[in-house]
């Protein structure tokens, strides 16, 4: 399927960029005329994926986070959030609600939030190479 519009952005894995990343992606999706709830869903899911890059992918270093968003059929947005960090050894386990490899103040709910707020969540990861999270949502919008 060919996208009808696309944007890409790259940023350093600094926590101060979390707000910028989620606002940039939701501003791009505004052309689909989403509801406030849909905007909030996308904002929250993007925040989860970007935070995971900052906290988990590059635990001791500052690396790069690559974000792209594409629009299909003027209806669906697909967002990719990629890092070249440590990777995830067991994706199935990582995606279980309440699982966290860090403990402490982490709830282990990032993937659960992404899955419940978006229509599709796909995770590809190679330990030592990095992780790509793909989030997809059909925008139903205001008047239907």
């Amino acid at each position, binding site marked *: 399927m060919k996208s009808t519009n696309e944007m890409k952005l790259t940023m350093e894995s600094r*926590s*101060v960029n*979390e*707000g910028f990343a*989620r606002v940039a992606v939701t501003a791009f999706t505004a052309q689909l005329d989403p509801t*406030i709830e849909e905007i*909030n*869903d996308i*904002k*929250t899911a993007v*925040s*989860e994926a970007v*935070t995971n890059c*900052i*906290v988990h992918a590059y635990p001791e270093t500052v690396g790069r986070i690559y974000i792209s968003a594409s629009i299909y059929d003027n209806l669906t947005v697909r967002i990719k959030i990629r890092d070249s960090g440590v990777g995830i050894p067991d994706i199935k386990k990582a995606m279980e609600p309440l699982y966290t490899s860090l403990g*402490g*103040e*982490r*709830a282990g*709910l*990032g993937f*659960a*939030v992404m899955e*419940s*707020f978006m229509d599709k969540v796909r995770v590809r990861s190679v330990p030592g190479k990095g992780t790509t999270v793909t989030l997809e949502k059909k925008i139903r919008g205001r008047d239907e």
Partner: protein
Amino acid sequence: MAARIFYEKDTMTVFLDGEIDHHSAAIIRAGIDEAILASRPGTLVLDFGGITFMDSSGIGLVMGRYRLLRALGGELVMTNLPESISKVMRLAGLEKLGRIEEREVTV
């Protein structure tokens, strides 16, 4: 984002505002914990009235304060939950950690 904190008898109320994400949670946590340890409140009220965004880092923040409070023998109350964060709160089951009170507070 600095949390404003008020005391009344042994109740400590924290008025949260702005966005709670991983970036801001560390700063908010430090402020709240310092106040909890200094005053050892019987009740901690977290007022979410001014919150415009919250993700799982906010969930972690609430769970962590709940644990600290429980260790000190206090209870947690959450109030003025905006519609925009109710979805993430429900998903995390935060209502099981403390009382949710609906109320209008202005300071």
